[in-house]
C-alpha cells in the first residue's frame, strides 16, 4: 500500500488544544490536510522535544465528533438544548443586531465581555469590547484570583514581575555560560502536573533538580515536590503570608540578608511620619517641593535629605542616608514631627512574627521554619517558584509583598539562577497588562471610567484593566449604578469551572437579554447562550506569543469545519461595531503589535522564535543596575520612587497597609470556630490533573481514561472514621452547598484536610436544563461564595474553606 504524502509542519502551542500557558514547539504531521500525529519539536528550546499528554491527544481533540463546527442559533427556550445551524454571516448579523440594541438602549458598558484563562485571546476579547465601547472585560473568577493579582502585587513592590530562572532566556538554555543553576528552589504552593503556570515549563524544575538544585516545598499536601524536598513545610492552607513573615523574621534576626543591596536599591532609609503613619514627602518639609519626592536622614550632617524620584537620586547624590533611627523633622509649616525609617517600620512589623506565633498560625513546627528560611537565605543563588494558591486568598497582596521581600532582600532578584525579571519579549505586548502600555486600549476616557470596580480598587486603576468580577455579579442583580443586559463569553466555562457560587451565576446569566458564546465544544455555559460560535484550536490559527521569551508565532496548520480562530471572529465583529477600527487584516494588527521587535509577522514566522539579545530590557541580568528597566534609562526600578519599595507608595495611596503582613482568611478554623462542630475538615480545591486543563478535556477518550472521575483526596484515618472506603462516592457539604465526589483514600493529604478536584462536568451526559451535562453533581464551587475579595479587590478564599464529608449510598447517577 502506497504511503500517503506526509507533511511535517512546525508551530507552537498557546491556546485551545492543550489549553495551557506553555509555549511548546510542536511538529504537526499532516496528510491530506488532516492532522495524523503530533510530536514535540526537538529543536525548540522551550520543551526540547518533550510534549504533555494533552498535546499528544490533539488528534482526538481536533476531530472530536462533538466539536462545534458551525455557528449555532438557539431555537428553543434558553437551556433547552435546541439549536439551528446558521451561517457566519447570519450569526454576525444577529449579534450585531442584539448587541447593537443593548448599546443603543443602555450604553455599551451594559455588555460584559467574559474570559477564562484566556491563553492568547484576552487581547482579542479586549479588542472587541473596546471597539463596541465597553470597558467591562471580566476574568470570571472571584477576585480575578489567578495570576494578575500576583503580577500587580509584585509590580507594587518592584515595578516589574519576575519568575524562576530556568535559563529560559537563552537559546542554549542550561549550557549558556551566563546561566547558573539555583542551589535551592522554594516551591511555594505549586505541583508538577500543572506543568506550565507563570509561563514557566514545570518540568524545567526537574531538569534543574537533576543538575543539583535542592527543593524546599511549601504545601499542605504531600506533593511530588514535597516527597523529594530537603525541607517540606506542611502549612495550613491560607497561612502563606504568616509563613513568609516567619521567613523574614529569621532572615532579619540572623542577618542573612544582603545589607548592601537593601541600602542601595530599596526605600529602607525613607522616613515615615509617626503622626500620620505615612511617608514623609519632600513637599511636607519644603514649600514648592514635589509630593512625589521623599525624604531620608543624612547621617553625617544630621539633616533631612530629599530623594528625587524623577532623577532617581538624592539631592545631593552623594548623601549617605541613615538606614534606621527615629528623627525629629521640622515641616514647612514649622511643625516638628517624629519620623522613623521604612526599615524600622518594616522591622517592627516583622517582629510581630516570632516563630512560636508563626508556628501556631501555620501549624508548621518552629525548627522547620527556621531551617528552611536559613537554607533559602544561605543558598546562592536561590529562587522561589509559586503557584496560584497565593492569588487564592483575600490578602493576596500583603502575602506577595512578603514573598517578594524574600527574593529582594536575599539578593536574588534578576541574578542568574534567582528570580528573574520577566518582560514581554522585545517589549511586544498586545494589550494592557499590569503596568504595560499597549496597542489595544480603550481610548474613550468617559467610557473607561464606567468600568465596574475601577473607582473602588487601586490595582484596577493602576495595573489591571478588568471589571471586578464579584461586583459584576452583584450588579447584574442590583442594576446599580447601571443595568447589565448582555454577555459575550469566550473560552470561558463559568458554570462548572471558573464561577464560584455557580447557581447564582446561572440565575444571573438567565436574567440577561442576550448571551453570545465562543467555544470549541458545547459546555454547560454555552448551553445557556443564544448564539454559539465555533472556535479554533492552536493548530487552526495564526497568533503571536511574547510571554515572556522567546518571541514566537503560532502558525496555522489546518482547518476544521467552519471553525474560526477567536481573533478572526472578534476582528470581523469589531469592524462592524467600530466605524473607526483601524486595521484592515489580522496580519496588519500582528505587524503593529510586533513593531517593537522590528519584525513583521511573516518575518518572525520564518524564524520561528527569537530571543532578545543582552542589553535588551527583556534579556537578563541585573537590569536595575544597567538602567534597562526605566524609560529614562536610569538605574533603578519602575516604581513611584524608583526604588524597590519595602514600603509601598501605591498601597499608601490606595489607603491600604503599605508593608507586608498576615491576615487570617475568612473561613478557617481560626475565624469560624463555631462552624467546626458541623464542618470540621478544611476543604481545599484546585489541585491539578496532568491530563486536564481546568474544565476542559473530559471528553477526550485517551485523557478521560487516565483520570475518569472527580476525586476528593481524604486521609485513611479521616476516611475510616467516616466508614469511607477507597473509590466510594461521598458527599462534600458545608453551609453553602454540597456535591458528590469519589473518595481517593490517600496519605498525600493530612488528616485535617480534603482536596477536591475542580472543573468537573460530564460531556457524555444530557446537555439540556436542568441537567446541564451534570454540572451540579461534582461541582465543588457550590461550597465557595462570591464577594470575599480582598481589600484591593483581588484574591478570593478558594484554598481554605470548611466542610464535612460523608458516604452516600451508591447513587452516583442520581440527577439533581
Amino acid at each position, binding site marked *: 500500500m502506497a504511503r500517503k504524502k506526509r507533511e511535517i509542519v512546525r508551530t507552537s502551542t498557546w491556546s485551545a488544544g492543550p489549553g495551557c500557558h506553555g509555549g511548546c514547539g510542536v511538529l504537526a504531521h499532516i496528510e491530506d490536510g488532516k492532522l495524523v500525529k503530533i510530536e514535540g519539536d526537538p529543536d525548540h528550546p522551550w520543551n526540547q522535544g518533550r510534549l504533555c499528554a494533552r498535546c499528544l491527544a490533539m488528534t482526538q481533540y481536533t476531530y472530536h465528533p462533538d466539536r462545534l463546527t458551525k455557528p449555532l442559533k438557539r431555537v428553543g427556550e434558553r437551556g433547552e438544548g435546541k439549536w439551528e445551524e446558521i451561517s457566519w454571516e447570519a450569526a454576525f448579523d444577529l449579534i450585531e443586531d442584539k448587541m447593537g440594541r443593548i448599546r443603543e438602549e443602555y450604553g455599551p458598558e451594559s455588555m460584559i465581555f467574559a474570559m477564562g484563562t484566556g491563553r492568547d485571546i484576552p487581547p482579542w476579547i479586549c479588542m472587541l469590547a473596546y471597539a463596541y465601547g465597553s470597558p467591562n472585560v471580566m476574568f470570571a473568577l472571584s477576585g480575578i484570583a489567578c495570576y494578575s493579582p500576583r503580577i500587580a502585587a509584585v509590580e507594587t513592590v518592584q515595578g516589574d514581575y519576575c519568575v524562576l530562572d530556568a535559563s529560559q532566556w537563552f537559546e542554549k538554555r542550561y549550557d549558556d555560560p551566563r546561566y547558573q543553576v539555583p542551589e535551592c528552589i522554594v516551591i511555594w504552593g505549586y505541583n508538577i502536573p500543572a506543568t506550565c503556570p507563570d509561563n514557566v515549563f514545570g518540568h524545567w524544575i*526537574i531538569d534543574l533538580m537533576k543538575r543539583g538544585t535542592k527543593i524546599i516545598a511549601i504545601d499542605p499536601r504531600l506533593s511530588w515536590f514535597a516527597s523529594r524536598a530537603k525541607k517540606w513545610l506542611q502549612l495550613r492552607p491560607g497561612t502563606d503570608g504568616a509563613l513568609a513573615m516567619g521567613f523574614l523574621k529569621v532572615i532579619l534576626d540572623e542577618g542573612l540578608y544582603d545589607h548592601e543591596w537593601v541600602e542601595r536599591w530599596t526605600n529602607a532609609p525613607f522616613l515615615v511620619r509617626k503622626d500620620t503613619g505615612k511617608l514623609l514627602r519632600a513637599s511636607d518639609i519644603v514649600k514648592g517641593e514635589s509630593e512625589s519626592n521623599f525624604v531620608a536622614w543624612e547621617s553625617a550632617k544630621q539633616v533631612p535629605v530629599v530623594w528625587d524620584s524623577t532623577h532617581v537620586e538624592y539631592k545631593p547624590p552623594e548623601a549617605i542616608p541613615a538606614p534606621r533611627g527615629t528623627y525629629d523633622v521640622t515641616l514647612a509649616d514649622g511643625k516638628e514631627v517624629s519620623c522613623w525609617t521604612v526599615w524600622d517600620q518594616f522591622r517592627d512589623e516583622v517582629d510581630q512574627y516570632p516563630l512560636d506565633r508563626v508556628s501556631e498560625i501555620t501549624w508548621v513546627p518552629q525548627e522547620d521554619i527556621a531551617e528552611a528560611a536559613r537554607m533559602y537565605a544561605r543558598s546562592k543563588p536561590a529562587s522561589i517558584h509559586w503557584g496560584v494558591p497565593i492569588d487564592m486568598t483575600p490578602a493576596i497582596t500583603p502575602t506577595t509583598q512578603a514573598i517578594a521581600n524574600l527574593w529582594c532582600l536575599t539578593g536574588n532578584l534578576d541574578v542568574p539562577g534567582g528570580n528573574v525579571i520577566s518582560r514581554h519579549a522585545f517589549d511586544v505586548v498586545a494589550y494592557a497588562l499590569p503596568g504595560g502600555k499597549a496597542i489595544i486600549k480603550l481610548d474613550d476616557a468617559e467610557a473607561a471610567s464606567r468600568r465596574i470596580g475601577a473607582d473602588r480598587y487601586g490595582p484596577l486603576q493602576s495595573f489591571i484593566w478588568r471589571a471586578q468580577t464579584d461586583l459584576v455579579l452583584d450588579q447584574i442583580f442590583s442594576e446599580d449604578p447601571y443595568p447589565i443586559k448582555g454577555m459575550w463569553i469566550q473560552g470561558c466555562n463559568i458554570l462548572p469551572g471558573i464561577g464560584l457560587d455557580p447557581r447564582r451565576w446561572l440565575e444571573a446569566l438567565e436574567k440577561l437579554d442576550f448571551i453570545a458564546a465562543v467555544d470549541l465544544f458545547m459546555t454547560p455555559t454555552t448551553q445557556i447562550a443564544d448564539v454559539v460560535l465555533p472556535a479554533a484550536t492552536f493548530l487552526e490559527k495564526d497568533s503571536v506569543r511574547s510571554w515572556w521569551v522567546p518571541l514566537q508565532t503560532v502558525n496555522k496548520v489546518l482547518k476544521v469545519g467552519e471553525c474560526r480562530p477567536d481573533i478572526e471572529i472578534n476582528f470581523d465583529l469589531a469592524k462592524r461595531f467600530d466605524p473607526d477600527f483601524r486595521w484592515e487584516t489580522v496580519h496588519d494588527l500582528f505587524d503593529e503589535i510586533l513593531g517593537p521587535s522590528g519584525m513583521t509577522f511573516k518575518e518572525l514566522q520564518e524564524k520561528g522564535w527569537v530571543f532578545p539579545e543582552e542589553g535588551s530590557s527583556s534579556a537578563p541580568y541585573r537590569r536595575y543596575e544597567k538602567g534597562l528597566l526605566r524609560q529614562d534609562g536610569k538605574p533603578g526600578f519602575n516604581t513611584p520612587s524608583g526604588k524597590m519599595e519595602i514600603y509601598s507608595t501605591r498601597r499608601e495611596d490606595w489607603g491600604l497597609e503599605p508593608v507586608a503582613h498576615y491576615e487570617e482568611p475568612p473561613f478557617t478554623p481560626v475565624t469560624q470556630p463555631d462552624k467546626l462542630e458541623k464542618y470540621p475538615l478544611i476543604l481545599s480545591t484546585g489541585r491539578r490533573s496532568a491530563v486536564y486543563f481546568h474544565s476542559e478535556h473530559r471528553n477526550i477518550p*485517551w*485523557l478521560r481514561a487516565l483520570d475518569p472521575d472527580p476525586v476528593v483526596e481524604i486521609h485513611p484515618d479521616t476516611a475510616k472514621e467516616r466508614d469511607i472506603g477507597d473509590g466510594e462516592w461521598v458527599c462534600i457539604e458545608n453551609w453553602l452547598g454540597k456535591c458528590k465526589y469519589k473518595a481517593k483514600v490517600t496519605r498525600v493529604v493530612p488528616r485535617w484536610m480534603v482536596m477536591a478536584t475542580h472543573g468537573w462536568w460530564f460531556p457524555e451526559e444530557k446537555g439540556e436544563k436542568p441537567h446541564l451535562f451534570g454540572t451540579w453533581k461534582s461541582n465543588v464551587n457550590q461550597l465557595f461564595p462570591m464577594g470575599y475579595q480582598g481589600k484591593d479587590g483581588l484574591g478570593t478564599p478558594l484554598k481554605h474553606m470548611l466542610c464535612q464529608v460523608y458516604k452516600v449510598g451508591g447513587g452516583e447517577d442520581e440527577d439533581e
Partner: protein
Amino acid sequence: MSDTKPEHGLLIDYEYCTGCHACEVACSQEYGWEAGMAGIKVIEVVEPLPKDKAYLAYIPFPTELCMLCARRTKEGLEPACVKHCMAAVIKHGRIEDLAKEIDKPRMVLWAPRP
C-alpha cells in the same frame, strides 16, 4: 513460553517520574490504541513510612502491548514514550548497556515482552 533472551529494554529513573502520563498518550497516539490501552502505564505508589511519613512515587511500567517501538527505532527514532517523557527519565537501549548506566538509586530496568 518464549525462550528468546531479551536484548533491548527500558531504563527508568523513577525518582524523577512525575506521573504526567505523557508516555501513555504518546504510545496510544503512535499505535492508535483505544482509550485505556497503551504500551506503558504509570502507576502511583504512596508508600507509608515510619513516623507518619510517606513517599509519593510514580513508576512507568511497560505493558503486554509494548513493542519497544521497533518501527521507530529502526528509523533511528527514539520510542514514542522516551521521546516525549516530560521528565526525560526513560532510556531505551541494549539491556547490557543500560545496566551499566544504573549509576544512582531509584532506577528500574525493564525487559518488556519482545
